[in-house]
């Protein structure tokens, strides 16, 4: 037998904090941090008593509240220059709450417009006349959904394992050619994606060597230890 208990559902820790600030009628610019922290923890323990999972972000906020509370009890730390630091430890949280509140209000405004717009009914049927030519209309979502379909169907065939397949020299060659096709000169560093792992770096380098061998690109360095610049080979 499962008992259902109606609890106010909060979208997240900020939502819960705004609720506590409202019901306690306290000033958001001067939050009584000890009181609010206590009520915040009461809500979390209520969730636990009901065996409901407490999402990670609620716990992060709990830690933040405790930290702010402890900071409020301490005398202001002197800064590196010896000047006392005046900043209220609550400020970052207050800023977050205010910003979140603004977006919550704009979400409400959007909901109002949604209601209003739902009074208009349009025809949803596509044009019966088949279209050919014209401009293209494809969203990235369409493309990705299609690819996901491919991946899902290919899942049983290990030979088509896209997920673990590393980037290839061929791909990197194409990418480099794309770059030099539109930019007169591309810096060597920019060929390597910032988050690239070692494999991608090696493969990219091999791709560059292959392009040089083919004579598809040129490499220049104006001064010793200067930037290495890749450019398209003059035809």
């Amino acid at each position, binding site marked *: 037998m499962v008992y259902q208990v109606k609890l106010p559902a909060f*979208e*997240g*820790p900020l*939502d819960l904090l705004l609720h506590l*600030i*409202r019901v306690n009628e306290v*000033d*958001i*610019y*001067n939050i*009584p*941090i*000890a*009181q609010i922290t206590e009520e915040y923890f009461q809500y979390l323990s209520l969730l636990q008593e009901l065996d409901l999972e407490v*999402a990670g*972000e609620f716990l992060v*906020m709990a830690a933040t509240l405790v930290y702010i*509370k402890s900071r*409020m*009890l301490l005398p*202001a730390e002197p800064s590196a220059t010896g000047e006392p630091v005046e*900043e*209220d430890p*609550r*400020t970052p949280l207050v800023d*977050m709450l*205010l*910003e*979140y*509140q*603004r*977006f*919550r*209000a*704009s*979400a*409400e*405004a*959007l*909901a109002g*417009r*949604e209601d*209003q*717009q*739902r*009074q*208009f*009914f*349009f*025809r*949803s*049927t*596509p*044009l019966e006349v088949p279209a050919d030519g014209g401009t293209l209309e494809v*969203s*990235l*979502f369409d493309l990705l959904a299609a690819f996901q379909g491919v991946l899902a169907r290919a899942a049983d065939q290990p030979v088509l394992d896209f997920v673990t397949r590393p980037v290839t020299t061929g791909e990197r060659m194409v990418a480099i050619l794309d770059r030099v096709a539109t930019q007169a000169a591309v810096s060597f560093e920019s060929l390597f*994606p*910032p*988050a690239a792992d070692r494999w991608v770096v090696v493969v990219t380098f091999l791709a560059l060597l292959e392009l040089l061998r083919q004579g598809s690109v040129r490499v220049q360095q104006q001064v010793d230890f200067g930037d290495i610049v890749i450019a398209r080979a003059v035809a």
Partner: protein
Amino acid sequence: MSQDDLAILEALLFASPDPLSIEQLHTVLGDVERDRIVENLNLLRETYEKNGSGLTIVQIAGGFRMSTRPDLHPWLSRLASTRPTRLSRPALETLSIIAYRQPITKAEMEAIRGVLVDGVLKTLMERDLIRVLGRKREVGRPLLYGSTRKFLEYFGFQDITELPSPQEIEALTPLRQDAGETVKSEGENS
């Protein structure tokens, strides 16, 4: 001739599943001037109104589309059983963040909402209200999101500048005393 111009305009608006811009109408109608098209659109709307028609012409997302008269919606709700559901509050919050702050990354949205937004992003993508705009030039190159034309249509905006300004939003929020003021470091009575 003008009579038939109106009929053609009417047929085009009826058949188009999306709002038609003056430019599109001009392309299709060929020799009809843009000003004349605007005049005819107004004439059509006025004729509908005068005749007590159940239809109307609305201006939306930079174009015009034919719609049912809003006051008749109770009747239409009875007919339409498969309308898309209203957006949830988390979806609306995330959408408003994207609309105001675009281009914006997922991490930035999560920083503002204080919760993960993965599920909501899927829904918004699927409903074609948001799209990927590219990648941010920073470590990890996260995807950047923005709003779509469908977003404008869905909420009845002409363009993105019609979104209420931050000041207008501010006026809607209950806790608005001295929003710009800096927080004073008062003796804590916590």
